[in-house]
């Protein structure tokens, strides 16, 4: 990946509709992107994104397919680098450090910024080994500590009671909804600061979806959550802030209430009222 870091003085900071967001002196910023651009080969997927993500909030990213919303959150933990032809420019500040700097190690970043993927992707290992995977790769070998982490994480993902008697069975024996909560628990086990969720409920049934949504509400007390969703009702239900992406640009970023009741941009209104997308 090529990182072009532009002169910090000449980035354009204002995005329409962010005025009411700025009034947040009590909450600290987790992520801040400055003039973030991203190309897949010749195609520009993200165009000058300037966003701020706040601590202990749920930020929803909505927009039609191909608008760059998944690309955007994968840029925040640099998973997007796994695609060979990607080029990024601009700055992404995570806790005031630019994660696009060469010296910033992705392994370190991803320990702070966990991710839950669209399709439940547990390892073909036991439930216990799935949850213990993260702590183990970060060097924790002590069985007692691992046991504690596993229980705490599974409780955090509200699945402890369902699996506590079969921790050593393969995670593939669980239902899709349970698997997704295992993946969430696995993410919690690395004790992240931010949790990225890339359409985490799109492969789940309504009841499993509800469980994940309730969890998100619970988890935001301890974590900052950024969730990509196709489902506008979901964004409205669970998020504090919503960013509407269209063709790689942020059309509008504001409090969720504002976006869904009184959007400033005509395109946002058209999208949330179902006129396109």
């Amino acid at each position, binding site marked *: 990946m090529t990182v072009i870091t532009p002169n910090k003085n000449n980035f354009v900071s204002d995005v329409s509709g962010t005025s009411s967001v700025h009034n947040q002196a009590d909450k600290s910023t987790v992520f801040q992107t400055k003039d973030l651009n991203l190309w897949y080969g010749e195609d520009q997927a993200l165009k000058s994104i300037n966003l701020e993500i706040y601590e202990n909030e749920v930020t929803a990213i909505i927009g039609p397919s191909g608008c760059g919303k998944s690309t955007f959150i994968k840029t925040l933990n640099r998973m997007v680098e*796994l695609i060979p032809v990607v080029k990024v420019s601009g700055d992404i500040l995570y806790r005031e450090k630019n994660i696009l700097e060469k010296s910033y190690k*992705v392994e370190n*970043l*991803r320990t702070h910024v*966990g991710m839950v993927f669209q399709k439940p992707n547990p390892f*073909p*290992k036991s439930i216990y080994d799935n949850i213990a995977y993260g702590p183990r*790769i970060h060097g924790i070998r002590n069985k007692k500590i691992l046991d504690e982490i596993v229980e705490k994480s599974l409780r955090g993902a509200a699945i402890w009671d369902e699996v506590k008697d079969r921790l050593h069975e393969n995670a593939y024996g669980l239902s899709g909804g349970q698997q997704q909560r295992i993946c969430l628990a696995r993410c919690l086990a690395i004790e992240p600061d931010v949790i990225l969720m890339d359409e985490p409920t799109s492969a789940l049934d309504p009841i499993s979806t509800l469980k994940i949504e309730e969890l998100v509400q619970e988890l935001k007390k301890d974590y900052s959550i950024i969730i990509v969703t196709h489902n506008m009702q979901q964004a409205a239900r669970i998020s504090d802030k919503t960013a509407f992406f269209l063709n790689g640009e942020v059309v509008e970023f504001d409090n969720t209430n504002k976006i869904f009741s009184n959007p400033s941009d005509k395109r946002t209104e058209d999208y949330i009222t179902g006129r396109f997308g």
Partner: protein
Amino acid sequence: MKYIDAEQVQKKLGSRLVLNNLAKRLFFLATLVGLVVLVILFYRVVTDSIGWIDFDFLTSKLSTDAERAGIMGAISGTFWLMLVVAPITFILGVGTAIYLEEYAKKGRFQAFIQINISNLAGVPSIVFGLLGLTVFVRGLGMGAVVLAGGLTMALLVLPVVVVSAQEAIRAVPQFLRDASYGMGATKWQTIKNVVLPAALPGILTGVILALSRAIGETAPLVVLGIPALLLPLPDGIFDKFTVMPLQIYYWTIDAALVAEYANLAAATIVVLLVLLFLMNSVAIIIRNKFQKRY
């Protein structure tokens, strides 16, 4: 208007069905040819070997007296050979496959290596024999010992192992790697903890099939100068040795002198075939047991 005329369809239906039937029979016949050849081969070999395979045959050393001759030497030679071939092909083959699939940037260099591995798989085995003779037997002065034969055989079957390990690694879904990277794992941690365990059944299948090819190979060992008449059993990788296919080869030639040698050759063929059958069965069992887990 309609383009497809029902009456025309009806009229042509008969000849279409005849052709359909003909195709089925033709392809069945093609399959039958191979099957019949196999059955005849088996029948000849088994009838020739009846009365010759017994415990003594498996545990006796070589002898010019057909009644007393056994293949203990060839069996232990084959065993030692595999002891060299298996770890070398596994380590080099899997290592190459990991590099090509996980580390190498997709580009000209990678494509160049890939094409050459395929080409290497097509090189006649006797050429590998010449390579082994030049490099190992003479160049490094090993002589016609197990190590020289094993290294030669390892090179011979390496492309097969590389390609099958690559396929197994490629079959590991990207979402499993993503899950690992997403938690801050390094590339090596991801390969070691996620990719290799998931790919291992496929890799093992490839290795076993490659070994079963190495067990049956004769030509490169002939070039290396592996002796046919060898009385002492090999005790290690620096000893002289012989293997079953070579034993079969020389007994078949010498059948002109002693007719019973033909029976010994047939008996050895049966032992070799049973061994290959067992190895392939293990490969199939591994494949069936672990496939489609995602």
